[in-house]
């Protein structure tokens, strides 16, 4: 298949969380999520337990996909930033490094200007980490270094999932 496997390792996971935790503080945000463009949650910090994070990830990805489709129709590559303004809470959604979605939820204790500024800096840091992650994944795949958990999977393992 032409698509690289999306993976996450401990080391990069910690680095990514450090960046978004810093962003949470510096942007005075309530919650921050990182979502894969396919709708899978990568990580979240802040008041995550107040939200249905799985649904949030899926709808965010759908939202980005739909606006990306709109962008193409009018001859743009994509809209790299979306902003949704609510009565109390606002969503700032941006694309990081072409493949990951960064979602920042904030209220009147912060401002769009501040969030934009901090997101820009954090995006650069995240892009570096994700680039490294992709390279690492490719190398591991090539070296067929099988700490891969499913290499030894049996029919019974699969059947047990559905019992």
């Amino acid at each position, binding site marked *: 298949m032409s698509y690289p496997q999306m*993976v996450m390792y401990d080391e990069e996971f910690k680095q990514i969380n450090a960046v978004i935790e810093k962003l949470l503080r510096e942007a005075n945000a309530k919650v921050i999520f990182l979502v894969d463009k396919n709708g899978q949650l990568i990580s979240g910090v802040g008041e995550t337990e107040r939200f249905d994070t799985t649904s949030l990830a899926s709808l965010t990805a759908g939202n980005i996909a739909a606006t990306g489709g709109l962008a193409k129709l009018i001859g743009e590559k994509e809209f790299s930033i979306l902003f949704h303004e609510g009565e109390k809470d606002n969503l700032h959604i941006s694309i990081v490094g072409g493949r990951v979605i960064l979602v920042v939820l904030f209220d009147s204790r912060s401002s769009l200007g501040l969030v934009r500024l901090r997101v820009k800096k954090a995006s650069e840091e995240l892009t570096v980490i994700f680039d490294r992650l992709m390279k690492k994944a490719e190398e591991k795949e090539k070296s067929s270094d099988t700490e891969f958990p499913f290499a030894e999977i049996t029919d019974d393992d699969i059947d047990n999932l559905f019992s």
Partner: protein
Amino acid sequence: MSFINYASREINCKIVYYGPGLCGKTTNLQFVYQKTAPEAKGKMISLATETERTLFFDFLPLALGEIRGFKTRFHLYTVPGQVFYDASRKLILKGVDGVVFVADSQEERMDANIESLENLRFNLQEQGYDLDKIPYVVQYNKRDLPNIVTLEELRRELNPTNVPEFEACATTGEGVFETLKSVAKLILIDLKKGR
């Protein structure tokens, strides 16, 4: 494409239910939702029109259990079957790991089935996938209705490559879990190969 998280020891796979309008894709997900234990499922999201036709997608996350210490999650999506929602269908196919084609067994829907299957193959190709190479199963739905096409004919028209196939009645749930289980299994076997 599946997402393997070694840090949180999770693996996520995306399954898309495809097929013509009103063939029963949303009903499949609703049945799975009803019959799954609360701790194993998340909220089902349906982005639908006022007449309950799928507008963008349905989404149902399932966390079925662990394999080799990895939490295994399946994200089930349906596409909108109505012909004019093609742009949305393409978006939902992005990153797909496995496809269920739901056919409507009624005679008068045969043309719609064939058209939808061609549309599936074409839209996958556009994303760089080959329907003959990805985990893929076929479900013949609405077997409870009187005016249905024979199994032989459905097979001939819709399953020439002989992928796993299931007769179903999504409203009563017959064949629904068999279908899901089969595609999930193909996905995990595919993962095992390590691509």
